[in-house]
């Protein structure tokens, strides 16, 4: 590491804070109907995206899901274009056509996010195959939820990746929920041993709030990918504070208990390092204000845009 560890930690905390505060701003703005798009917030899960993306170079590429604000930001996507996209404005990264569920920023290796569960997992494998073909020292991460591991395409992707030894890191972002349904109600298999059965190396991070650990483990795994060691599999356990989709809390809905959140709240880096966070708030707020101002000033897409980029 070039920077001293405390500088590094600060950087990671700042990014976590930025994502948290942006999504809180989304919550704040939501009742104004300026953001007319279903939002799947990452609040509580931000350290996963931050740690993973820290280990990636801008050339490394990432595929992810509809729960994608955190990844877009952590991978280096620009904030004003993010906000304008959420607003459905022409200044958005996709001119308003994508909205919250389909964020992308190819210039920094954020290759898109799909609202159909598990559908980008095979893209990570194919992109890794292409990286290998082209002889690039490029690594690919494909992120998916625990629910996605139930889909057939996940299994097909693991098999292909191992068969062809492609440089892809499968990351299961395990919040133990698919919408409101617990793992136990959905899965008869153990995700890690199942993955192992394909002959892939597996790693599990129990504390999805440990920014440094996520960054370190990912860096090691990506180094192995780049050295031709074949695909890797990583599960990071984490916790979603907010409802599955939308700006609200849903602890009164009955499918989980507020007490489940306690340990995560305690280890939440924004709480653990509250004093460091305090010093960063003003600057982060200013950054978000600028992004919101950009979105507010951005014009809605012109009617002609309806039929552009179709083919």
């Amino acid at each position, binding site marked *: 590491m070039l920077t001293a560890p405390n500088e590094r930690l600060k950087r990671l905390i700042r990014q976590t804070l930025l994502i948290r505060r942006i999504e809180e701003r989304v919550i704040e703005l939501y009742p104004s109907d300026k953001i007319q*798009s279903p939002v799947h917030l990452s609040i509580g899960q931000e350290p996963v995206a931050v740690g993973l993306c820290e280990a990636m170079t801008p050339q490394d590429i990432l595929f992810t899901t509809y729960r994608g604000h955190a990844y877009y930001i952590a991978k280096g996507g620009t904030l004003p274009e993010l906000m304008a996209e959420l607003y459905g404005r022409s200044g958005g990264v996709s001119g308003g056509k994508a909205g919250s569920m389909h964020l992308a920023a190819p210039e920094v290796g954020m290759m898109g996010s799909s609202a159909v569960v598990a559908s980008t997992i095979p893209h990570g494998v194919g992109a890794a195959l292409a990286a290998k073909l082209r002889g690039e020292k490029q690594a690919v991460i494909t992120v998916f939820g625990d629910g996605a591991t139930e889909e057939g395409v996940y299994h097909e992707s693991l098999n292909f990746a191992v068969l062809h030894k492609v440089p892809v890191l499968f990351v299961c972002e395990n919040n133990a929920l698919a919408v409101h349904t617990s793992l136990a109600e959905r899965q008869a298999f153990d995700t890690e041993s199942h993955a192992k059965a394909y002959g892939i190396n597996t790693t599990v991070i129990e504390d999805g709030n440990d920014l440094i650990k996520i960054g370190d483990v990912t860096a090691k795994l990506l180094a192995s990918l780049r050295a031709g060691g074949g695909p890797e599999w990583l599960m990071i356990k984490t916790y979603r504070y907010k409802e599955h989709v939308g700006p609200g809390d849903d602890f009164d809905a009955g499918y989980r208990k507020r007490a489940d959140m306690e340990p995560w709240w305690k280890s939440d880096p924004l709480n653990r390092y509250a004093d460091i966070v305090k010093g960063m708030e003003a600057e982060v707020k200013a950054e978000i204000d600028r992004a919101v101002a950009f979105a507010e000033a951005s014009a809605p897409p012109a009617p002609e845009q309806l039929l552009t980029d179709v083919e």
Partner: protein
Amino acid sequence: MTHQSTATSLSYREALHKAMHDAMAGNPNALLFGQGINDHKGIFGTTTGLADKFGKHRLIEVPLAEEGVTGNCIGAALNGAYPINVHIRSDFVLLAMNQIINLAAKYKYMFGGLFDVPMLVRLVIGRSWGQGAQHSQSLQSLFAHIPGLTVIMPASSGSIVDSYAHAVRKHRGPVISLEHRLMYDLKFEPEHEPVVLGATPFSQRKVSHGSDVTIVSTSIMSLEARRAGEWLASRGISCDIIDLHCVSHIDADVIMKSVARTGKLLVADTSWQPYGVSAEVCRIVAMRDPGVLKAPVVCMGMAAAPCPTAKALEDIYYPNLTTLTDAIATLVRGKKDNGIELPHERSMADVYKKFKGPF
């Protein structure tokens, strides 16, 4: 043969709940499969409480495994159960197309009639509030293209109650039903229920009688057509509106009889036009007797693009009450400058604008 729907005053959502309840109560071998089927939201309130009454062994919470679960339904249907499988967006059923098209649709014919696959697949079409490209598709024509499938698009509470009861009790083949999310909160009074134009609840429906133009519509466009028809009725234009309801089995006589009277045809579908319901209705007229047409057919549907998320674009992506009314008036008057005052509301905009989920 025509008959009136049996429905009492229910919202679309209540009708769906009643249909699910009645299916479970009426057939001990009926099963309901879906992701989140037993959670507190219960598929937008259409399955809530049913597990308490009928048991979780019949209301089956399923993993994210659309193709596998569809195959499970087929196997269950082959062995005496009546499976109902619900997808909260029609877009997700695309993962199960192999089972539906290669298996469910063909099982009877391919084995020379040895088997039936009685099952119902409920799909919900999303619209509004930035559903975007992958949560808004209206896929009726993909299914209606395939022999062996019956595809319905209920546009009223009565259509739900009667058609689902018919599917569960009488029909022996796979039925695909496309429900529209934006209709869930609408209440349908029995006197507004369209008249069924045929022997079974899967038949076409007459929304209103008229003499100037035939409007053939599907799903929520049948509601828009009714509203446009009411607006135009007081302005001297009378619309004959047919709610297609069953898009896979269209009674050509119903359409031809109407068009022969009016000489003018407008098709208003919820989906894209090419290779779709619009194209199919045009095929029927072109093959039966294009000579009855006094003007070229007009078709309305989604713009020829995936659905954009931005509201500014989504607003012009779909036909609305204004554009529909204008198109009807232009067709009837034979000129763009049709002199008909247009309604101010953008569409069923009151409903759409208020819609903020749950998704």
